[in-house]
């Protein structure tokens, strides 16, 4: 027994060391954002000798070459509307495919699965050219709408519903519930875990998408945070690591908070689907 205890203490120690190594870049990012320019360029230590908020003041000031506030607003709008749209579209489609004996069901299911195997790169440039053709570059439409064409969500929810007992819904129908009532009162609560998982995955995918927004956005005003950070990295005069890290902290913290909040649902969703 003593040997077993020793072994588990050793495992915890090893895992902790790895965890510290893993978190180091993030911790370094945060501390560097509070350093002065000269210190950030020469520093070989983690903590600032002289703490400063100058970097944050600079990136949010009116004369800044970055547009941090606007980018944050764009990101919030695009990710929230985009995620809601994906969930709405996918839940309705998956419900109809799994529960209603609709015409053409097999064809739609085949489409969903075939589309999953086709790499995204083949549609990217033509989609950009189509948006260009209808003068919708530098608007919110290409930043939000195309994500709802993804079939992964339909596939996940469809599979989840297929393995879920139908008795409850049938009882509701017998009691005179309408289809809409069954959908909102019976189906929605039961698919919550998989929808939450889809929601978080979609949110992070839209938040962190880089290539697609970079194709359909030129105007600085229309950039998302992810795209904005790329602009800063590529900017020729942006050679200030402290200010750079302040920007990445601002661009990263919202996603990290959402992620940490959703983490418990994530784990639950995966566990629930595993029990069955």
């Amino acid at each position, binding site marked *: 027994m003593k040997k077993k205890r020793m072994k588990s203490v050793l*495992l915890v120690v090893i895992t902790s060391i790895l965890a510290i190594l893993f978190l180091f870049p993030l911790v370094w990012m945060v501390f560097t954002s509070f350093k002065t320019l000269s210190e950030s360029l020469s520093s*070989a230590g983690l903590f600032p000798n002289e703490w400063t908020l100058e970097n944050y003041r600079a990136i949010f000031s009116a004369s800044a070459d970055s547009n941090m506030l606007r980018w944050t607003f764009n990101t919030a709008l695009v990710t929230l509307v985009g995620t809601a749209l994906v969930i709405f579209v996918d839940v309705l489609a998956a419900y*109809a495919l799994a529960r209603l004996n609709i015409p053409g069901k097999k064809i739609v299911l085949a489409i969903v699965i075939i589309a999953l195997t086709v790499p995204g*790169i*083949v549609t990217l*440039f*033509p989609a950009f050219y189509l948006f260009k053709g209808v003068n919708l570059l530098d608007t919110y439409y290409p930043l939000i709408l195309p994500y709802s064409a993804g079939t992964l969500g339909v596939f996940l929810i469809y599979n989840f519903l297929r393995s879920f007992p139908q008795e409850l819904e049938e009882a509701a129908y017998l009691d005179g519930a309408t289809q809409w009532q069954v959908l909102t009162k019976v189906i929605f609560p039961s698919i919550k875990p998989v929808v939450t998982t889809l929601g978080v995955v979609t949110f992070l995918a839209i938040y962190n998408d880089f290539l697609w927004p970079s194709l359909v956005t030129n105007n600085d005003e229309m950039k998302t945070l992810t795209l904005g*950070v*790329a602009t800063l990295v590529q900017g020729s005069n942006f050679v200030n*690591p402290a200010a750079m890290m302040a920007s990445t902290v601002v661009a990263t913290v919202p996603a990290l908070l959402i992620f940490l909040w959703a983490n418990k649902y994530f784990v639950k969703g995966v566990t629930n689907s595993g029990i069955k």
Partner: protein
Amino acid sequence: MYMTKRTKWFGFVFVIPFLISFLIFWLTPLLYGIWISLHDFRLSVGNNGFIGLQNYVAILTPTTLYHDVFMNTLKNTLLFIALSVPPLVLISLGLALLIDHLPNRLKTFFRTVFFLSYAISVTAVSALYLWLFGANGGFINNILLKTGLISSAINWTGDQPYAWFVIVVATVWWTVGFNMLLFVNALDEVDVNLYEAADLDGASAWNKFRYITLPDIRNISIFVMITTVIASFNLYGQSLLITRGGPGQSTSSLIMGIHATVFGNNQLGIGSAMALLMGIIMMLITGLQYWASYRNKREETGQRREPKQRLKRALNAGPTNVSQQPATTVEKKERKIT
């Protein structure tokens, strides 16, 4: 279910939003892309007429500019896959095994820690590693110079093999947590009783892993392998922002090559053909991986074991038990096959 014909058609309404979106943002671009790839299509002025397969010929015939771009970036991308996939799969499995053996209370905590970096965007990851590994004023160089380990700054992002090293480290750090989560969940479902029985009978740690754990996480391992190869194929942000494709064009990825063809050279037709070729190559490699794993599985089905037999195997394979078991010669032979 109790439904009339009318409600059947009514149910179709639920699928319509998805179908419209799919039609406009997926099917149309796909078909349009194929159509564009068969035309002399410029980004600035549009269509200059049908040219059949000439774009594909231009890409696949040696000594044309677009052949060089495509082949060079394809070669770089395949090299990146070879460099990044093994650590992404092995490190994630190692972390998952480590976490699986921790006390329950700590599991969730460490799982979150190693998964945390997945929530960061590729541009933030690139900005971070660009300055950790910066040549002048970068943190790693500052430390190495101050401790006297090196006498002059290493050009991490501008010299090979350092450039690939930084890109691979950044990528592994960024995405290894996702693979780890998949492995952790698969390990959670391995039958605990088997481990306990094996422990009682004194099976070694390696044999427990080989004969109890590995067969149970086989499917998820194949899934992780395939999705990781696909993800590495899509290398773009890291090499665009950390090394700018350099030194020379040595870290320029396929997507960067296609992007440059469309936007730098104004050739939307050739770029679309390149994108389709890339898609076909990716699907072929994915198919090959499926086929290879499926073929192995078929070979193995003949000797698929019930839990009890797997346990027996884990024990028999250990050198201590060999002499006591009459059946070991057969067991050992089978071990070699698998």
